C-alpha cells in the first residue's frame, strides 16, 4: 500500500533538527585528541572516576530493578486515588531538577536531619560516601524503570494470566513464568534507561554526595572539574560517556523490537 506522502517542505525543519542534534556530537569527535586518549584515560583521577561511575551505576540500576519492578507491578494493578498519588510520587524525580532532588535527599537523609542523624548514630551514615552516590543515582533513575515497565504491564493482555491460573499456576508461578517473561523487553530497556540516567547524574550527586575523588566524584563530576583545568581530559572522558550512551540506546532499541514480536 502506498501511503499519501507527507508535504515536501517538512524536510527543511526535519533536516535542521537532525543537524542540530548531530553537530555537537560530531564536533566532539573531531576535537578528541585520539593519539593521547589512552594516556588521558589512564590518569589516576580519570580511572577513579570511570570505575566509580561503572560501579555505582551498576548498583543503582540493580537497586532500581529490585525495588522499582515490584512497585511497577503493584501500580499496574492499582486503581483509585492512592494509586494516583503513588504514581505521581514515583515519577516526580524524572521531572524534578536534579539539584532539587539532591537538596531533597540532603534535607531528608543529611547529617542534620533526624533520619540522617539516626543513620549516622547507627554507623551507616551516608554523608560523602559512595553509598550516597548510589542513593542519589537510584533516586533519579528508578522512575524511568517504573514508568516503562508499568506502561508495558498496563498494555499487556491479561488473558495469558487467566489461562495460566486455570492451568493451576499460583500467583508466584504466574509472575515468574508468564507476566515477567512477557514484559521482559520492557524490563531490560527500563533497566538500561535507569543505568543511562544514573550514568549522566550530576546535580543530585554533587548536592547530596559531594565531589571526593575515588569516593563520590563520578564521571560527569570529573568532566565538569577538568573542563577548565584540562579540556582534553574532559573531552576524552566525555567520549567514553558518549560511547556508553550509544551502546545503551542501541540495546534498548533492540529490546524494544523484541517486544513487538508478541504484542
Amino acid at each position, binding site marked *: 500500500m502506498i501511503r499519501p506522502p507527507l508535504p515536501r517542505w517538512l524536510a527543511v525543519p526535519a533536516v535542521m533538527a537532525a543537524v542540530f542534534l548531530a553537530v555537537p556530537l560530531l564536533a566532539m569527535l573531531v576535537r578528541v585528541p585520539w593519539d593521547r586518549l589512552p594516556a588521558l584515560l589512564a590518569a589516576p583521577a580519570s580511572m577513579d572516576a570511570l570505575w566509580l561511575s561503572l560501579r555505582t551505576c551498576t548498583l543503582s540500576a540493580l537497586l532500581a530493578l529490585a525495588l522499582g519492578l515490584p512497585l511497577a507491578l503493584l501500580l499496574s494493578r492499582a486503581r483509585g486515588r492512592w494509586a494516583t498519588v503513588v504514581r505521581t510520587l514515583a515519577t516526580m524525580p524524572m521531572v524534578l531538577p536534579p539539584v532539587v532532588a539532591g537538596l531533597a535527599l540532603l534535607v531528608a537523609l543529611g547529617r542534620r536531619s533526624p533520619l540522617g542523624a539516626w543513620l549516622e548514630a547507627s554507623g551507616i551514615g551516608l554523608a560523602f560516601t559512595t553509598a550516597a552516590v548510589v542513593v542519589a543515582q537510584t533516586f533519579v533513575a528508578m522512575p524511568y524503570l517504573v514508568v516503562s515497565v508499568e506502561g508495558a504491564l498496563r498494555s499487556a*493482555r491479561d488473558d495469558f494470566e*487467566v489461562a495460566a491460573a486455570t492451568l493451576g*499456576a499460583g500467583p508466584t508461578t504466574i509472575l515468574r513464568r508468564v507476566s515477567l517473561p*512477557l514484559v521482559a523487553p520492557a524490563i531490560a530497556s527500563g533497566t538500561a534507561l535507569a543505568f543511562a540516567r544514573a550514568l549522566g547524574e550530576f546535580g543530585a550527586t554533587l548536592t547530596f554526595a559531594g565531589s571526593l575523588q575515588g569516593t563520590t566524584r563520578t564521571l560527569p563530576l570529573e568532566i565538569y572539574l577538568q573542563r577548565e583545568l584540562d579540556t582534553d581530559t574532559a573531552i576524552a572522558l566525555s567520549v567514553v560517556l558518549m560511547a556508553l550512551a550509544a551502546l545503551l540506546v542501541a540495546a534498548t532499541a533492540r529490546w524494544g523490537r523484541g517486544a513487538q514480536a508478541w504484542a
Partner: protein
Amino acid sequence: MIAPRIAVPDGARTAVGVHAAVATRGVELAIDVPPGTVTAVVGPNGSGKTTLLHLVAGLVAPSAGTVRIDDATVAGGSVHVPIHRRRVALLTQRPSLFPHLDVLANVMFGPLAGGASRAAARARALTELDAVGCGAFVDRRPVQLSGGQAQRVAIARALATDPKVILLDEPLAGLDVAVGAEVRHTLAARLRGRTALLVTHEPLDIWTIADRVAVLDAGRLEAEGPAQELLTRPTTGFLARLSGTNLLAGRADGADALELAPGFLLRGLPDPDSPLTPDAPALASVAPAAISLHRAEPGGSPRNVLPATVVSVEPRGQVVRVHLDLCGHSVSADLTPQSVAELGLAPGLPVRAAIKATQVRLYGR
C-alpha cells in the same frame, strides 16, 4: 488421527452445581451439571452464559448463593477458592497460548505448575498433543500456528492438567467454517465422558459435542435437559429457533391436534415420547420449509389450511424467509424467490398457509 488413549480422568466423576446470583450482572442461576456430561449453554446475548462459566472458573464471585464442584463449595459465603486451586480448564475464542513458549512448553506448563517432573510433564504433553493431531509441531512458537492449530494446542494444554471441569466459551467462534468443523470433531472426541460446559450459538456444536442443553434467558435458567429431547421437542422460542423450527403453543384437541385459536386446529403427528393430554397445554413444532403459502384455498391432499398475514419478507440467499402472523402466532415459512414473486407477497397481505399434518410434530409441555 484422534486416538483418545488417555485414561478417563477425574472429569468423568465431577458434578458441578451453581446456585448463585451475581447482582451486578443481573444473573440468578440454579443449575446442576451431571458428572461426565457435556452441557451446551445457549441463550441470547447477555443472558448470563459467560457469567455462568466465570462463576465456575472463579473469575466472578457470587453475590449470593454457592458454587460447588464435586462435594466442595468453591465459592459462596466466606469461601472463595482461587482459580488455580479449582482444577477447572477454560477455553475461549482466543487460544491464549503463551507467546514466549513453544508449543510443547505451553502444554507442559499445566503439569509443571501442578508439581509434575519435567519428564512426566513432557510425556503427558506429547500424549495430549498427539491426541489433538498436533504432535508434528511441538517446537513451533504460537505465532507460527494457524488459528485452528492454536486452538487444538489450547485444547491439549487444557486437558493436560486433568481438569475436573472443562469450560468452553465459544471455542470455535473465531475459526473459519472448514477449520471449525475439524476442531469441532476433535473437541467432540476429547470431551466425551468429561464434565464440561460449552457456550455456543451453533446447533451443530450441540448435536456433535453436547449431551445436554441449558437455555439461559435474562440471567435465569429457562430450560435444561437432554440435548436430543430439547432440540426435537423445543419448549422455548429460543430452542425452536436454534433447532430451526417454528414453535406453536396451544391446547390439545384430542390426541392429534392443537387448537391454536378458538376454531383453528393444527393437525399433526403426536410424539410417542411425549403424547398429548386432551385439553392440556401442548406444543407443535413445524419446519419453515413445511409451510406453503397460497392466495386462494388450495385443494389436494389432506393438510392444514390456516389463515395468515404476511408480516415481513426477508431474503436469505437461496430461500426467502416469510414471517407470518398465523392465528395470532409468529411463524416463519421458507419459500423460493420465484414463489414469493408469483404470489406477490408483501407485508400486510392475507394468505392461506398450508401445512402437511405429517410435517407437524405435536407434544405435551
